[in-house]
């Protein structure tokens, strides 16, 4: 473990620094957010010598407001973290995917792939999702314990998204490793490819993410090459190859960026909703018993799991004009970070927000964001979480967590890396 950096200690309300991944790794962010909502709902984090300063938004209504004005609070200047003060050499390149695009181009690009994500598309894939889920569970069924993350929760989203993209099963483990590298770059566990003396350092994190992206993009360039020679019509990659925006075909860079986004966005988030969901159910025995007695409560239970876990900690926007939020002036060019776990426990919106209630209604959580960039995969994510818990609790009704979850060091993904569980084997 590296020592806490001086930048991590920069003074903030009550000493809270949302740039510090350890706050989240220790699962102490909810307490920090509670304090911030009360004492400093819109506060400026000065950043460090490396990272830009940024505004932190922790109130539901403020986050909603920013999400509703994508033309003022734009995504194209970066959506994760507050951004580096200096772009490392060789790292800005022309192509971008929808998540870093602004209106009006954004919605045109989104509509290209939209068809694959509609409620109907999800419904059609449901039997397949259930089949995959049971194949995954078959692999652990004869044992009485496993690492729930490696063997269960990560495997379903991986199979679903790779299946949608038409990737052969032999490539799935690589996709798993690369998404870990890209989104978990700040965690030493995923820095295996950097020199030993760099592990755990800032440079180790930057190199890990860059290496992950380089290999992911290289992989998809090869896949595209293959599709051009042997065209297919049944997968996302092929749809993108055939698509046009304003009468123009997408560039190779655009398609690769889109594929990269789908694999990364589809994997890490859903995995952690499932892992976090199991932890929540194990910690709330009464709610769990209620769910196991009444499986038809599953849809609202899934919403509560999403609110409770908020798999993405934040998204960032940049203001393009001066704005006032809750009486605080935000200047054009400044970064704004929207903290979803805080919005999802906002006392002004949710009754008894620190209570895990599988029948909560209404439950207008912001785990999937809102508006222009509202999660494209929300329907799939909901179906995957629901089907996983339906099958898991049916087949392993006594499954329980037996040790401390090993959490990811990140202020971006609410990640669980390992989760030991035990259960009665099936006979």
């Amino acid at each position, binding site marked *: 473990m590296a020592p806490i950096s001086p930048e991590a200690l920069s003074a903030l309300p009550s000493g809270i620094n949302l740039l510090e991944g350890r706050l989240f790794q220790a699962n102490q962010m909810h307490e920090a957010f509670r304090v911030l909502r009360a004492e400093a709902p819109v506060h400026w984090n000065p950043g460090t010598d490396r990272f830009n300063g940024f505004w932190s938004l922790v109130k539901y209504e403020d986050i909603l407001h920013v999400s*509703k004005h994508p033309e003022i609070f734009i995504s194209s200047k970066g959506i994760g973290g507050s951004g580096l003060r200096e772009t490392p050499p060789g790292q800005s390149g022309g192509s971008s995917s929808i998540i870093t695009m602004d209106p009006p181009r954004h919605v045109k690009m989104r509509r290209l792939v939209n068809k694959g994500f*509609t*409620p*109907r598309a999800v419904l059609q894939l449901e039997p397949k999702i259930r089949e995959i889920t049971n194949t995954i569970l078959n692999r652990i069924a004869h044992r009485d314990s496993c690492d729930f993350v490696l063997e269960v929760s990560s495997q379903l989203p991986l199979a679903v998204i790779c299946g949608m993209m038409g990737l052969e099963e032999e490539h799935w483990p690589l996709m798993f490793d690369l998404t870990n590298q890209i989104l978990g770059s700040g965690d030493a566990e995923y820095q295996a490819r950097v020199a030993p003396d760099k592990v755990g350092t800032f440079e180790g994190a930057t190199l890990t993410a860059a290496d992950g992206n380089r290999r992911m993009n290289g992989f998809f360039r090869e896949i595209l090459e293959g599709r051009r020679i042997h065209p297919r019509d049944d997968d996302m990659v092929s749809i993108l190859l055939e698509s046009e925006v304003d009468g123009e075909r997408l560039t190779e860079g655009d398609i690769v960026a889109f594929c990269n986004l789908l694999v990364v966005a589809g994997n890490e988030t859903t995995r952690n909703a499932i892992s976090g969901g199991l932890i929540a159910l194990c910690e709330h025995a009464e709610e769990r018993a209620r769910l196991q007695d009444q499986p038809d409560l599953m849809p609202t239970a899934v919403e509560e799991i999403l609110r409770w876990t908020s798999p993405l900690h934040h998204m960032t926007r940049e203001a393009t004009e001066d704005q006032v939020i809750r009486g605080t002036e935000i200047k054009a060019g400044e970064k704004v970070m929207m903290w979803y776990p805080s919005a999802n426990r906002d006392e002004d919106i949710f009754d008894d927000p620190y209570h895990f209630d599988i029948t909560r209604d209404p439950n*207008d959580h912001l785990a*999937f964001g809102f*508006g222009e960039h509202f999660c494209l995969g929300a329907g799939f994510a909901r179906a995957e979480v629901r089907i996983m818990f339906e099958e898991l609790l049916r087949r392993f009704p006594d499954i329980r967590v037996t040790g401390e979850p090993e959490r990811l060091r990140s202020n971006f993904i609410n990640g669980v890396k390992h989760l030991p569980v035990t259960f009665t084997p099936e006979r």
Partner: protein
Amino acid sequence: MARQVEVDHNRCEGHGKCVLAAPEVFEHREDDLSHVLVDDVPEALVTKVDRAIRVCPRQAIAWRD
């Protein structure tokens, strides 16, 4: 004065939150999109429509003015 509401089909992605909020006003059709069932929204349904507008995750619904 009676008000009309509309759904922007360039943005709607059929999440159906509007149908849950105001089933008298919105309907989910074969095309996977939400459709408005009434010309003028009756006074009694205005609050429900306001809620639909608020919860539509794609911000596809708006009052016509």
